[in-house]
């Protein structure tokens, strides 16, 4: 009987606009069919979050936006605009 497993697509955008360009990405595949890792592709799988939504991916997490902590206004660290998307895919149970 077919079972479903979660596949995650993490897209990092140029701006918080979901139409804006993807600048970084990662894929984690709960079906076990694919194994992705650092440097395995130079081209993002979608140009934007909306483009991924149009291909059936569901957005399950938005980045929260907070004002910078005092003294850290010009610090850079992690990529701010991180969107997590999922697809449920069937596996052979």
């Amino acid at each position, binding site marked *: 009987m077919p079972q479903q497993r979660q596949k995650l697509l993490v897209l990092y955008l140029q701006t918080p606009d979901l139409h804006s360009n993807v600048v970084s990405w990662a894929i984690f595949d709960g079906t076990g069919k694919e194994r992705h890792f*650092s440097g395995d*592709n130079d081209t993002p799988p979608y140009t934007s979050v909306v483009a991924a939504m149009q291909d059936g991916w569901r957005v399950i997490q938005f980045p929260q936006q907070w004002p910078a902590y005092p003294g850290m206004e010009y610090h850079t660290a992690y990529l701010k605009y991180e969107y997590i998307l999922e697809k449920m895919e069937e596996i052979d149970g």
Partner: protein
Amino acid sequence: MADCSYLLNSKQMARFVSDGYLRFDELVPAELNTAVCKEMDLHGVPREKAGARFDDIWKEAAIGRVFRMPEVAGIIRSLVGSNPIYDHHAVHTVPAGHQTGQIWHADAIIDRRMFSAFDIQFFYFAHDTPREMGGTMILPGSHYRYISETDIARYQNFLNQAPIVCKAGTVVVVHHGIWHCAQPNRTDRVRYMFKLRLNPAVRQLRLWNTDDIDDPEIPGLLSISHKWYGNEERLEQVNRIKFWRYLTGDDTFDNHYWLSRIENEPTMAS
């Protein structure tokens, strides 16, 4: 003492400030590459005590001859000064047939010396390293980020990520904060990358050849964009200006007015 003619110039320093690394292809001659590969095969590079002065170590080893080459000594002197401090080294080895990439990381905990003293790391490739062999992937311009070690391991790919694919004898020198990761080795040969970290023993003030400090290309080199920055590009411009101020000792330096604008707080009444 390094030959002054081998010092970096201001344009190279500006690239280091923007990109966080400099690359020198096929710098080390073949006979020395072969000798170092043999040392690495035999685990023959002595581990020294952290804090040792660099001039006092590896006097006999082939690897010492590499770092005493005038071209390499000039890079060292330009970035961390003469006779810097040995931090550590590692012979990074990726076995034949290793199919996955290492997680992204920086070789440091959060380092608050963001616009002051900095360390350098050499990535030395003593044998040819085609893409199917790796090599080390680096993320240009990632060196000002406040992260700790493998905090960044969730990321997999970035626009403009840069695998070091090179011929034998290539030397890359990076800022201590650069993000990087080893890449798969799909060949049937072991891959080596020799890494060396050095700390400065002097204030890093205009250590390079500054004859071209006013070169008109420098503002442009300090403004080079990296696509993965997205909306944070202007924040990175601020980081670069602050770092250039430290390196040159010029606290009034600005580029495209980014800092002058936000530092303008008049106190005189009209």
